[in-house]
């Protein structure tokens, strides 16, 4: 098999990191940081997801095509979200007669 064999010690380290980050996320949520709450929560989530992708899903040792495929899926998700939110965010920008 061409697949790379990751040593279990790596998996344990990643697991510990993910647990720690989860605890951090929960604790931070109990403090009022205003808009930063969302930024921090999502930022940590993205980092955790990256760890799962890179190590548990061995993206780190996969071919470039795999990274391209994953990248494309998140890019398209971004298109869905940003392009739709563009409508909602701008609903008040240009007034329509009568409104």
């Amino acid at each position: 098999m061409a697949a790379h064999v990751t040593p279990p010690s790596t998996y344990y380290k990643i697991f510990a990191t993910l647990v720690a980050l989860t605890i951090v996320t929960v604790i931070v949520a109990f403090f009022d940081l205003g808009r930063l709450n969302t930024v921090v929560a999502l930022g940590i989530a993205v980092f955790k997801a990256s760890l799962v992708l890179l190590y548990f899903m061995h993206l780190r040792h996969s071919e470039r095509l795999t990274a391209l495929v994953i990248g494309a899926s998140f890019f398209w998700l971004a298109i869905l979200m940003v392009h739709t939110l563009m409508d909602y965010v701008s609903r008040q920008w240009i007034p329509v007669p009568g409104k």
Partner: protein
Amino acid sequence: MATQYAVQPPDEERRVHYLNADYGIRSWLLTVDHKRIALLYLGTVTVMFAVGGLFAVLIRLELLTPTGDLMDSDTYNKVFTMHGIVMVFFFLIPAIPAVLGNFLVPLMIGARDLAFPRLNLFSWYLFVFACLFGVGAIASGGVDTGWTFYTPYSTSSSNTHVITATFAAFVVGFSSILTGLNFIVTIHRMRAPGLTWFRMPLFLWAIYATSLIIMLATPVLAITLLLLIVERAFHFGIFDAQLGGDPVLFQHLFWFYSHPAVYIMILPSMGVISELVATFTRKPIFGYTFVAYSSIGIAVLGFLVWGHHMFVSGQSVYAGMVFSLLSYLVAIPSAIKVFNWTATLYQGSVSFQTPMLYAFGFIGLFTIGGLTGLFLAATGLDVHVHDTYFVVAHFHYIMVGGTIMGYLGGLHYWWPKITGRLYPEGLAKIAAFIVFLGFNLTFFPQFVVGYLGMPRRYHMYPPEFQVLNVMSTAGASILGVGYLLPFVYLIWSMRYGRRATANPWGATGLEWQTPSPPPTHNFDVTPVVTEPAYSYPPIQHVRERVVG
């Protein structure tokens, strides 16, 4: 070189190929051979086309007169809804990919089958299951929401079989996804030695781009229809303004799929046209690289323009401007294809067999459809023609004048390969002309009557529009005859047509390097590719011969 025989010598009757390798219903219903699965799909989509066509007949009959005399408005709403749902989800989306794609992709790349043959069969069963649900929705009383299922009518007010119909569309989406997945993996991993990306026939580029769209867009349709079903059942308010929900959110989610879906419908047909133009001009397609990249360009840009269906729905003016600009942009790759097909004709050795007639029809009618799409992309104009017959004419020029022409052209072109028989060329040419004539008579008047203000989805209209509507219905009758003829003579040819050789058209491409019909495993020896696509010998021009 030896004279090209179109007819096969007598040994042919004893040769084992994919059609006679095994007999009986089980050998078809449990097959994993991509060629047999393609034929299973052919049968199913033809049935669904007939169902959708029946609703079209009812629409056109009703519209012969300005008053609603054939059916009441509720029934008419059901009729145009079912016409749209069946034609879009159960014919146009699957037809070319699942019939021609399934049959040709392994042959064109020199493989023995697709990457996942059992998944392929499963996708057909999902398709049949979905069709049964769709027909079930029709038989139990129909749906009247329009094929677009807009909320809150579909979630709160309509008392028709919305959940059955949306569930059918939900399931057919998964059939589509599995087909697309199979094509992507097959094209990435199973190309024959020497078949680099830029040596592939353009049909494969088109199928690949289509598959990308299928994978990225269809899941959003799935979740949207699921949300619609849940909303209709539980009313938690996601699309209901009275509970703080936004009906326009449904439209965003719906069109995020449904606009790329129209490219799922047209791209494979464009791929067919590239093959036809190359073969019947005996030249490589002009600007191969541009045409290949334009397929990817259409796939990508097609995801950015969905809001042009929503200019008057209440989305922001700013968003309308952005979607309008991007819609103009997406026309460019399509135009590149049309220019390149046309340029290929220059100094080509053009012949006018039936597939090429359909190709010419496509190029002309798709251009009209595409240009009128640009009319609609202009927000100022769209405000006036939105929800009129102008829009209906626009998309029928693309779907029928474009997609179906390509489908028929491809079906005729590859018919000898699929069945080992030649169709009757004279009758086929006549049928192609009838289709072209009938099509234009049906849909051109609709541009006029729509521009003059006749709204769509109404079974009554002001009397001054009647003449044009009568013309349209007359055209539809002629178009119906045009479609019926191939149905009859293609089936006839399977038994009585002259037998075909491996390469009756003298075309390039790996699919023509194996007998007609191919053996189950496609190739006795895996081919090795050493030349670019469409490597025809150079054409000797008159001047060269005279001057020397």
